[in-house]
Protein backbone atom coordinates (compact mmCIF):
# COMPACT_ATOMS: atom_id res chain seq x y z
CA UNK A 1 0.00 0.00 0.00
CA UNK A 2 1.23 3.52 -0.83
CA UNK A 3 0.45 6.70 1.11
CA UNK A 4 1.28 10.17 -0.16
CA UNK A 5 1.25 12.97 2.40
CA UNK A 6 1.37 16.64 1.40
CA UNK A 7 3.61 18.70 3.64
CA UNK A 8 4.32 22.45 3.83
CA UNK A 9 5.72 22.87 7.34
CA UNK A 10 2.58 24.41 8.84
CA UNK A 11 1.10 22.90 12.02
CA UNK A 12 -1.83 21.23 10.23
CA UNK A 13 0.54 19.52 7.78
CA UNK A 14 2.59 18.20 10.72
CA UNK A 15 -0.62 16.62 12.05
CA UNK A 16 -1.10 15.05 8.62
CA UNK A 17 2.44 13.63 8.76
CA UNK A 18 1.79 12.19 12.23
CA UNK A 19 -1.30 10.41 10.90
CA UNK A 20 0.59 9.19 7.82
CA UNK A 21 3.36 7.76 9.99
CA UNK A 22 0.82 6.10 12.26
CA UNK A 23 -0.93 4.48 9.29
CA UNK A 24 2.38 3.62 7.64
CA UNK A 25 3.46 1.64 10.67
CA UNK A 26 0.05 0.07 11.44
CA UNK A 27 -0.96 -1.17 8.00
CA UNK A 28 2.01 -1.29 7.06
CA UNK A 29 2.36 1.08 4.08
CA UNK A 30 5.03 2.95 2.17
CA UNK A 31 4.77 6.64 3.11
CA UNK A 32 6.14 9.41 0.88
CA UNK A 33 6.00 13.09 1.79
CA UNK A 34 5.53 15.60 -1.00
CA UNK A 35 6.60 19.22 -0.62
CA UNK A 36 5.77 21.64 -3.42
CA UNK A 37 7.94 24.73 -3.90
CA UNK A 38 5.58 27.38 -5.24
CA UNK A 39 7.50 29.87 -7.40
CA UNK A 40 4.61 32.41 -7.35
CA UNK A 41 6.76 35.17 -5.82
CA UNK A 42 9.27 34.97 -8.65
CA UNK A 43 6.80 36.19 -11.25
CA UNK A 44 6.94 39.70 -9.77
CA UNK A 45 10.66 40.20 -10.42
CA UNK A 46 9.84 41.98 -13.67
CA UNK A 47 7.32 44.36 -12.10
CA UNK A 48 7.15 47.79 -13.72
CA UNK A 49 10.09 49.95 -12.53
CA UNK A 50 11.40 47.27 -10.17
CA UNK A 51 15.05 47.54 -9.18
CA UNK A 52 17.42 44.87 -7.88
CA UNK A 53 15.63 42.14 -9.85
CA UNK A 54 18.55 39.67 -9.79
CA UNK A 55 19.02 39.96 -6.04
CA UNK A 56 15.28 39.54 -5.50
CA UNK A 57 15.20 36.32 -7.53
CA UNK A 58 18.25 34.96 -5.71
CA UNK A 59 16.73 35.88 -2.36
CA UNK A 60 13.35 34.25 -3.11
CA UNK A 61 15.12 31.09 -4.30
CA UNK A 62 17.26 31.06 -1.12
CA UNK A 63 14.14 31.40 1.07
CA UNK A 64 12.17 28.70 -0.75
CA UNK A 65 15.08 26.26 -0.67
CA UNK A 66 15.71 26.93 3.02
CA UNK A 67 12.02 26.37 3.79
CA UNK A 68 12.05 23.09 1.83
CA UNK A 69 15.15 21.91 3.66
CA UNK A 70 13.60 22.73 7.01
CA UNK A 71 10.41 20.85 6.10
CA UNK A 72 12.47 17.84 5.02
CA UNK A 73 14.56 17.94 8.19
CA UNK A 74 11.44 18.00 10.38
CA UNK A 75 9.85 15.18 8.39
CA UNK A 76 13.00 13.04 8.58
CA UNK A 77 13.14 13.67 12.34
CA UNK A 78 9.51 12.61 12.81
CA UNK A 79 10.00 9.44 10.75
CA UNK A 80 13.24 8.57 12.54
CA UNK A 81 11.59 8.99 15.93
CA UNK A 82 8.86 6.50 14.98
CA UNK A 83 11.15 4.10 13.08
CA UNK A 84 9.66 4.65 9.62
CA UNK A 85 11.74 5.00 6.47
CA UNK A 86 11.66 8.69 5.40
CA UNK A 87 10.79 9.15 1.73
CA UNK A 88 10.66 12.79 0.70
CA UNK A 89 9.98 14.32 -2.67
CA UNK A 90 10.09 17.94 -3.87
CA UNK A 91 8.24 19.35 -6.87
CA UNK A 92 8.29 22.90 -8.25
CA UNK A 93 5.15 24.66 -9.46
CA UNK A 94 1.59 25.53 -8.58
CA UNK A 95 0.77 23.28 -5.57
CA UNK A 96 -2.60 21.93 -6.73
CA UNK A 97 -1.28 21.09 -10.20
CA UNK A 98 1.90 19.48 -8.87
CA UNK A 99 0.11 17.35 -6.26
CA UNK A 100 -2.33 16.07 -8.88
CA UNK A 101 0.56 15.30 -11.23
CA UNK A 102 2.34 13.36 -8.48
CA UNK A 103 -0.87 11.47 -7.73
CA UNK A 104 -1.19 10.64 -11.43
CA UNK A 105 2.40 9.38 -11.63
CA UNK A 106 2.67 7.51 -8.32
CA UNK A 107 -0.98 6.37 -7.97
CA UNK A 108 -1.04 6.25 -4.14
CA UNK A 109 -3.82 4.33 -2.41
CA UNK A 110 -4.33 7.16 0.03
CA UNK A 111 -3.59 10.89 -0.13
CA UNK A 112 -3.29 12.72 3.20
CA UNK A 113 -3.33 16.51 3.57
CA UNK A 114 -3.52 18.90 6.47
CA UNK A 115 -6.56 21.14 6.70
CA UNK A 116 -7.05 24.45 8.48
CA UNK A 117 -10.32 25.58 10.03
CA UNK A 118 -10.95 28.66 7.88
CA UNK A 119 -13.61 31.33 7.82
CA UNK A 120 -15.35 32.23 4.54
CA UNK A 121 -12.69 34.81 3.56
CA UNK A 122 -9.91 32.34 4.38
CA UNK A 123 -11.55 29.66 2.21
CA UNK A 124 -11.93 32.16 -0.64
CA UNK A 125 -8.30 33.28 -0.32
CA UNK A 126 -6.73 29.85 -0.14
CA UNK A 127 -9.04 28.32 -2.70
CA UNK A 128 -9.48 25.51 -0.15
CA UNK A 129 -6.79 23.25 -1.58
CA UNK A 130 -7.63 20.10 0.45
CA UNK A 131 -11.29 20.17 -0.65
CA UNK A 132 -10.35 20.74 -4.28
CA UNK A 133 -7.87 17.88 -4.02
CA UNK A 134 -10.57 15.62 -2.64
CA UNK A 135 -12.72 16.42 -5.69
CA UNK A 136 -9.99 16.11 -8.30
CA UNK A 137 -7.52 13.50 -7.03
CA UNK A 138 -9.74 10.57 -8.02
CA UNK A 139 -8.72 8.51 -4.99
CA UNK A 140 -9.17 8.42 -1.24
CA UNK A 141 -8.16 11.69 0.41
CA UNK A 142 -7.82 12.05 4.16
CA UNK A 143 -7.90 15.62 5.47
CA UNK A 144 -6.37 16.13 8.92
CA UNK A 145 -7.31 19.20 10.91
CA UNK A 146 -5.40 20.38 13.97
CA UNK A 147 -8.68 21.39 15.62
CA UNK A 148 -9.55 18.75 18.21
CA UNK A 149 -7.75 15.53 18.97
CA UNK A 150 -6.95 12.97 16.34
CA UNK A 151 -8.69 9.86 17.78
CA UNK A 152 -6.27 7.50 16.08
CA UNK A 153 -3.25 9.16 17.68
CA UNK A 154 -4.74 9.62 21.15
CA UNK A 155 -3.25 7.10 23.50
Amino acid at each position, binding site marked *: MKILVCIDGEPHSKSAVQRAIFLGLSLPAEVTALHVIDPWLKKFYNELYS*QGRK*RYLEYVEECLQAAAEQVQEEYNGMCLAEGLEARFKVRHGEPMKEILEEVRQVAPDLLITGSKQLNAWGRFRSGNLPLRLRKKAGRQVLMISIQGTDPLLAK
Partner: protein
Amino acid sequence: MGLALTVVFIFGTAIVVMWLCKKWGVPDGLGGIMGAGTGVCGVSAIIATSPVVRSSPIEMAYAIGTILFFGTLMLFTMPYIGKGIDLSESQFGAWSAVAILNTAQLVAAAEWYGTEARDTAVLINVARIMLLPLVVLFSLWFYILRTGKQVPGHEINKWQLVKDKFPVFILGFFLLVFLNSLNLELLGGPKITDSPFWAMNAVYKWFFAIGFAGIGLSISIDDMKKAGGKAFTIGMVAALVKMVLGLGAVLLIGSQWLRVTGG
Protein backbone atom coordinates in the same frame (compact mmCIF):
# COMPACT_ATOMS: atom_id res chain seq x y z
CA MET B 1 5.08 71.59 -5.81
CA GLY B 2 4.39 68.05 -7.02
CA LEU B 3 7.93 67.03 -6.06
CA ALA B 4 7.60 68.46 -2.54
CA LEU B 5 4.28 66.63 -2.16
CA THR B 6 5.92 63.39 -3.30
CA VAL B 7 8.82 63.66 -0.85
CA VAL B 8 6.47 64.36 2.06
CA PHE B 9 4.14 61.46 1.17
CA ILE B 10 6.89 58.92 0.45
CA PHE B 11 8.96 59.48 3.55
CA GLY B 12 5.92 60.32 5.68
CA THR B 13 4.24 57.02 4.79
CA ALA B 14 7.38 54.88 4.96
CA ILE B 15 8.54 56.30 8.32
CA VAL B 16 5.09 56.26 9.97
CA VAL B 17 4.24 52.74 8.74
CA MET B 18 7.61 51.29 9.80
CA TRP B 19 7.46 53.06 13.17
CA LEU B 20 3.88 51.90 13.87
CA CYS B 21 4.70 48.34 12.78
CA LYS B 22 7.66 48.30 15.16
CA LYS B 23 5.50 49.70 17.97
CA TRP B 24 2.75 47.12 17.39
CA GLY B 25 5.15 44.18 17.23
CA VAL B 26 4.76 43.46 13.50
CA PRO B 27 7.76 41.33 12.39
CA ASP B 28 10.56 43.40 10.82
CA GLY B 29 10.36 41.48 7.53
CA LEU B 30 6.73 42.50 7.08
CA GLY B 31 6.97 46.02 8.55
CA GLY B 32 9.91 46.87 6.27
CA ILE B 33 8.24 45.83 3.02
CA MET B 34 4.87 47.31 3.96
CA GLY B 35 6.55 50.64 4.85
CA ALA B 36 8.44 50.74 1.55
CA GLY B 37 5.55 49.28 -0.47
CA THR B 38 2.89 51.70 0.79
CA GLY B 39 5.35 54.60 0.72
CA VAL B 40 6.99 54.35 -2.69
CA CYS B 41 5.71 52.35 -5.60
CA GLY B 42 4.11 49.18 -4.31
CA VAL B 43 5.34 45.84 -5.57
CA SER B 44 8.57 47.24 -7.07
CA ALA B 45 9.48 48.66 -3.64
CA ILE B 46 8.75 45.29 -2.03
CA ILE B 47 11.07 43.63 -4.56
CA ALA B 48 13.84 46.09 -3.73
CA THR B 49 13.38 45.97 0.05
CA SER B 50 12.58 42.34 0.86
CA PRO B 51 16.18 41.00 0.60
CA VAL B 52 17.40 43.89 2.78
CA VAL B 53 14.97 43.37 5.67
CA ARG B 54 14.97 39.59 5.08
CA SER B 55 11.23 39.09 4.67
CA SER B 56 9.90 35.55 4.63
CA PRO B 57 8.04 34.21 1.54
CA ILE B 58 4.72 34.30 3.40
CA GLU B 59 5.28 37.95 4.40
CA MET B 60 6.14 38.84 0.79
CA ALA B 61 3.03 37.03 -0.48
CA TYR B 62 0.78 38.85 1.99
CA ALA B 63 2.38 42.22 1.19
CA ILE B 64 2.25 41.82 -2.62
CA GLY B 65 -1.34 40.55 -2.52
CA THR B 66 -2.38 43.45 -0.28
CA ILE B 67 -0.70 46.10 -2.45
CA LEU B 68 -2.28 44.67 -5.62
CA PHE B 69 -5.69 44.39 -3.95
CA PHE B 70 -5.83 47.96 -2.64
CA GLY B 71 -4.07 49.36 -5.72
CA THR B 72 -6.74 47.80 -7.93
CA LEU B 73 -9.55 48.91 -5.62
CA MET B 74 -8.23 52.49 -5.80
CA LEU B 75 -7.88 52.24 -9.59
CA PHE B 76 -11.59 51.53 -9.90
CA THR B 77 -12.86 53.99 -7.27
CA MET B 78 -10.66 57.09 -7.36
CA PRO B 79 -11.50 58.26 -10.90
CA TYR B 80 -15.21 58.26 -9.96
CA ILE B 81 -14.50 60.16 -6.74
CA GLY B 82 -12.38 62.62 -8.74
CA LYS B 83 -15.17 63.20 -11.27
CA GLY B 84 -17.72 63.37 -8.46
CA ILE B 85 -15.94 66.22 -6.69
CA ASP B 86 -14.87 67.85 -9.96
CA LEU B 87 -11.09 67.49 -9.55
CA SER B 88 -9.06 68.96 -12.39
CA GLU B 89 -6.87 66.59 -14.40
CA SER B 90 -3.63 67.87 -12.85
CA GLN B 91 -5.10 67.55 -9.35
CA PHE B 92 -6.26 64.01 -10.06
CA GLY B 93 -2.87 63.08 -11.54
CA ALA B 94 -1.09 64.32 -8.41
CA TRP B 95 -3.65 62.67 -6.13
CA SER B 96 -3.35 59.28 -7.81
CA ALA B 97 0.46 59.53 -7.84
CA VAL B 98 0.70 60.11 -4.10
CA ALA B 99 -2.19 57.89 -2.99
CA ILE B 100 -2.46 54.77 -5.19
CA LEU B 101 -0.24 52.08 -3.75
CA ASN B 102 1.09 50.47 -6.94
CA THR B 103 2.67 52.08 -10.00
CA ALA B 104 0.75 50.20 -12.69
CA GLN B 105 -2.64 51.00 -11.17
CA LEU B 106 -1.79 54.65 -10.52
CA VAL B 107 -0.74 55.26 -14.13
CA ALA B 108 -3.80 53.36 -15.38
CA ALA B 109 -6.16 55.45 -13.17
CA ALA B 110 -4.56 58.71 -14.33
CA GLU B 111 -4.65 57.61 -17.99
CA TRP B 112 -8.34 56.84 -17.56
CA TYR B 113 -8.94 60.35 -16.15
CA GLY B 114 -7.22 62.20 -18.98
CA THR B 115 -3.96 63.02 -20.75
CA GLU B 116 -2.98 65.83 -18.41
CA ALA B 117 -3.74 63.66 -15.40
CA ARG B 118 -1.49 60.94 -16.84
CA ASP B 119 1.37 63.37 -17.54
CA THR B 120 1.21 64.74 -13.99
CA ALA B 121 0.99 61.26 -12.47
CA VAL B 122 3.87 59.89 -14.55
CA LEU B 123 6.12 62.83 -13.67
CA ILE B 124 5.40 62.59 -9.93
CA ASN B 125 5.80 58.82 -10.10
CA VAL B 126 9.25 59.20 -11.67
CA ALA B 127 10.23 61.35 -8.69
CA ARG B 128 8.78 58.65 -6.43
CA ILE B 129 10.85 55.92 -8.07
CA MET B 130 13.96 58.10 -7.96
CA LEU B 131 13.62 58.14 -4.17
CA LEU B 132 13.33 54.34 -3.93
CA PRO B 133 17.06 53.77 -3.14
CA LEU B 134 16.77 56.23 -0.23
CA VAL B 135 13.76 54.41 1.19
CA VAL B 136 15.60 51.07 0.91
CA LEU B 137 18.56 52.67 2.66
CA PHE B 138 16.23 53.96 5.37
CA SER B 139 14.81 50.43 5.86
CA LEU B 140 18.35 49.10 6.18
CA TRP B 141 19.14 51.66 8.86
CA PHE B 142 15.79 51.32 10.67
CA TYR B 143 15.68 47.53 10.86
CA ILE B 144 19.29 46.37 10.64
CA LEU B 145 21.93 48.98 11.42
CA ARG B 146 20.09 50.86 14.18
CA THR B 147 19.22 47.66 16.03
CA GLY B 148 22.63 46.02 15.46
CA LYS B 149 21.06 43.04 13.65
CA GLN B 150 23.70 42.86 10.92
CA VAL B 151 25.14 39.37 10.68
CA PRO B 152 28.97 39.45 10.95
CA GLY B 153 30.54 38.54 7.63
CA HIS B 154 27.34 39.50 5.75
CA GLU B 155 27.61 43.28 6.06
CA ILE B 156 25.62 45.18 3.45
CA ASN B 157 27.59 47.67 1.36
CA LYS B 158 25.43 50.80 1.46
CA TRP B 159 26.79 52.34 -1.75
CA GLN B 160 26.40 49.08 -3.62
CA LEU B 161 22.83 48.91 -2.33
CA VAL B 162 22.03 52.42 -3.63
CA LYS B 163 23.69 51.56 -6.96
CA ASP B 164 21.71 48.31 -7.32
CA LYS B 165 18.40 49.95 -6.52
CA PHE B 166 18.96 53.09 -8.59
CA PRO B 167 16.49 53.21 -11.49
CA VAL B 168 18.86 53.72 -14.44
CA PHE B 169 16.03 54.58 -16.84
CA ILE B 170 15.62 57.85 -14.88
CA LEU B 171 18.85 59.07 -16.55
CA GLY B 172 17.25 58.56 -19.97
CA PHE B 173 14.14 60.36 -18.75
CA PHE B 174 16.15 63.40 -17.64
CA LEU B 175 18.22 63.36 -20.84
CA LEU B 176 15.02 63.61 -22.90
CA VAL B 177 13.61 66.33 -20.64
CA PHE B 178 16.89 68.25 -21.09
CA LEU B 179 16.91 67.81 -24.87
CA ASN B 180 13.25 68.80 -25.10
CA SER B 181 13.96 71.91 -23.03
CA LEU B 182 16.71 73.01 -25.45
CA ASN B 183 14.10 73.36 -28.23
CA LEU B 184 16.56 72.09 -30.85
CA GLU B 185 15.26 72.43 -34.39
CA LEU B 186 16.93 69.12 -35.28
CA LEU B 187 14.78 67.15 -32.78
CA GLY B 188 11.58 69.14 -33.11
CA GLY B 189 8.90 68.51 -30.49
CA PRO B 190 5.96 66.24 -29.71
CA LYS B 191 3.60 68.61 -31.49
CA ILE B 192 5.83 69.38 -34.51
CA THR B 193 4.69 66.95 -37.19
CA ASP B 194 7.30 64.64 -38.76
CA SER B 195 10.05 65.62 -36.29
CA PRO B 196 12.01 62.96 -34.29
CA PHE B 197 10.28 63.89 -31.01
CA TRP B 198 6.87 63.79 -32.69
CA ALA B 199 7.65 60.25 -33.94
CA MET B 200 8.85 59.20 -30.47
CA ASN B 201 5.65 60.54 -28.95
CA ALA B 202 3.52 58.58 -31.44
CA VAL B 203 5.44 55.34 -30.82
CA TYR B 204 5.35 55.90 -27.05
CA LYS B 205 1.54 55.70 -27.04
CA TRP B 206 1.71 52.23 -28.62
CA PHE B 207 4.40 51.05 -26.21
CA PHE B 208 2.28 52.38 -23.38
CA ALA B 209 -0.77 50.43 -24.54
CA ILE B 210 1.25 47.22 -25.06
CA GLY B 211 2.96 47.67 -21.67
CA PHE B 212 -0.37 48.02 -19.90
CA ALA B 213 -1.85 45.05 -21.68
CA GLY B 214 1.17 43.10 -20.37
CA ILE B 215 0.62 44.31 -16.82
CA GLY B 216 -3.07 43.42 -16.98
CA LEU B 217 -2.24 39.96 -18.26
CA SER B 218 0.31 39.35 -15.51
CA ILE B 219 -1.99 40.24 -12.58
CA SER B 220 -4.80 37.86 -11.69
CA ILE B 221 -7.52 37.65 -9.07
CA ASP B 222 -5.50 34.80 -7.52
CA ASP B 223 -2.60 37.23 -6.95
CA MET B 224 -4.88 39.61 -5.07
CA LYS B 225 -6.34 36.75 -3.04
CA LYS B 226 -2.95 36.38 -1.36
CA ALA B 227 -3.77 39.59 0.56
CA GLY B 228 -4.20 38.86 4.21
CA GLY B 229 -2.86 38.79 7.73
CA LYS B 230 -1.49 41.94 9.33
CA ALA B 231 -0.41 43.18 5.89
CA PHE B 232 -4.07 43.59 4.95
CA THR B 233 -4.80 45.87 7.92
CA ILE B 234 -1.61 47.90 7.35
CA GLY B 235 -2.39 48.25 3.63
CA MET B 236 -5.99 49.25 4.26
CA VAL B 237 -5.07 51.92 6.82
CA ALA B 238 -2.23 53.29 4.66
CA ALA B 239 -4.44 53.39 1.54
CA LEU B 240 -7.26 55.19 3.35
CA VAL B 241 -5.00 57.71 5.06
CA LYS B 242 -3.08 58.43 1.84
CA MET B 243 -6.32 58.87 -0.09
CA VAL B 244 -7.76 61.36 2.40
CA LEU B 245 -4.54 63.31 3.06
CA GLY B 246 -3.58 63.27 -0.64
CA LEU B 247 -6.98 64.63 -1.62
CA GLY B 248 -6.74 67.36 1.02
CA ALA B 249 -3.27 68.29 -0.21
CA VAL B 250 -4.17 68.57 -3.92
CA LEU B 251 -7.31 70.57 -3.07
CA LEU B 252 -5.23 72.97 -0.97
CA ILE B 253 -2.45 73.30 -3.54
CA GLY B 254 -4.80 73.82 -6.49
CA SER B 255 -4.49 72.96 -10.20
CA GLN B 256 -2.09 75.68 -11.22
CA TRP B 257 0.82 74.48 -9.06
CA LEU B 258 0.42 70.88 -10.17
CA ARG B 259 0.15 71.45 -13.90
CA VAL B 260 2.79 69.81 -16.12
CA THR B 261 3.81 72.13 -18.92
CA GLY B 262 5.95 71.50 -21.98
CA GLY B 263 5.77 69.88 -25.38
